[in-house]
């Protein structure tokens, strides 16, 4: 079975991985907010944010090249906005759009790469995110692997029986794969529901209450606040 890279990263071991998800979510949200409200002196401030996020990535033992490559995926999307700014003669704003987007993506990637999805969703829930939405996300993620494995098996079976398919048959069989996957997903959803009912499910999820934040979580939050405060102090003095 293939696993997504972020999932693999999130199972590494580091001081950042061991922190409570809530502390990391709050810290990431603070960095994103701080980035959004930064409006001038980009040449100094964006590298400062870069140092902060790089430090977090290093502490989290995330591979720098992989992280940068994935964060760079946002660049084609923000490139058009930056190009418009350049066209309008505002090179500073163009650089800020690119820089802020790249740093925001890096921040989110560090959060996702150091927090398993279940911990992240649980953290979001205890911070007030709607449970229904999180449950849908959780089920989607859980069964995405099963569905992708089924799709891979069907595609392999198709390749075995049609080693050199022409374009028309490819489209036809792809449509067939999608239809079969949909029907199978529907059947699986019914069976999952039966399995839930068999273990006493009565329409709402009962979860264990989250444990309290530890001292290291508070130290981490304080360090993040101090770093962001320093950056804004630098901004004040520029």
């Amino acid at each position, binding site marked *: *079975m293939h*696993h997504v890279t972020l*999932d693999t990263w999130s199972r590494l071991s580091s001081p950042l991985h061991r922190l409570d998800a809530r502390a990391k979510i709050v810290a990431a949200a603070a960095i994103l907010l701080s980035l959004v409200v930064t409006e001038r002196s980009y040449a100094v401030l964006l590298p400062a944010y870069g140092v902060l996020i790089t430090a977090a990535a290093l502490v989290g033992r995330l591979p720098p090249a992989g992280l940068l490559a994935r964060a760079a995926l946002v660049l084609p999307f923000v490139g058009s906005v930056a190009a418009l700014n350049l066209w309008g003669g505002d090179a500073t704003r163009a650089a800020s759009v690119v820089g802020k987007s790249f740093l925001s993506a890096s921040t989110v990637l560090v959060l996702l790469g150091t927090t*398993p*999805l*279940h911990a992240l*969703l649980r953290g979001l829930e205890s911070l007030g995110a709607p449970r229904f939405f999180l449950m849908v996300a*959780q*089920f989607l*993620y*859980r*069964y995405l*692997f*099963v569905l992708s494995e089924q799709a891979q098996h069907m595609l392999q079976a198709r390749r075995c029986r049609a080693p050199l398919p022409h374009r028309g048959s490819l489209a036809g069989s792809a449509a067939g794969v999608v239809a079969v996957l949909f029907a199978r997903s529907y059947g*699986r959803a019914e*069976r*999952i529901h*039966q*399995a*839930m*009912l*068999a*273990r*006493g*499910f*009565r329409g709402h999820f*009962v*979860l*264990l*209450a989250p444990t309290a934040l530890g001292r290291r979580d508070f130290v981490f939050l304080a360090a993040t606040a101090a770093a962001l405060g320093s950056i804004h102090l630098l901004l004040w003095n520029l």
Partner: protein
Amino acid sequence: MEPLIRVTNLRHRYDDGTQALDGVDFVLYPRETVALFGPNGSGKTTFLLHLVGLLEGEGGVEVCGLPLGKKNYSRIRQKVGILFQDSDDQLFMPTVFDDVAFGPLNLGLERKEVEHRVRQCLRLVQMEEAAARAPYHLSAGEKRRVALAGVLAMEPEILILDEPVTFLDPPGRAALLEILHKLPQAKIIVSHDIDLARELATRAVFLQHGRIAGAGSVEEMVVRFEWESRAVTR
């Protein structure tokens, strides 16, 4: 001795008109293990789903003296644990711990008791170290054992195992069999695996065309219905 399960003239017809069960009579006594044989489509899984109220048909089903009905569903589902054929259907929570805790939490147990049961059941199936892992990272054998832990965490009196060793490699099969041997609960095992039935079952029942076509020892059923040779030639 009072039976744990008593089924009388159970009938079930699916919406497409298929008569899946056509008058099934069945009893299960404490501490016995019954192997349920039958060809594909004979109604085995349909029958099992009736025992926990996941399907409703005509006829009588009584579990631990409780007639099957909406008002008794939660008590009956606590008494009857069902291990489904495909573990991926059963392991829907994000971590092994959460999955095993799902049943006890639905029973309204306190945190300490839930954690105790989860640890105990994971230890029983030798999966204690996998508590923080995601179910999709487990092998087929590990998934099956975790699914069993989730069922055992409800502390059921009866275990229903639907094809428990399908897709398992020999070590996975051996590990599961060792665990099943230790469990004191009465069991109904649906399987095409005759060796599994020989190892675990105290008697066997043969279901065909939605009816009990025969009951007796495993060997009697295998010989009478030519089950071993038919299994080979099919």
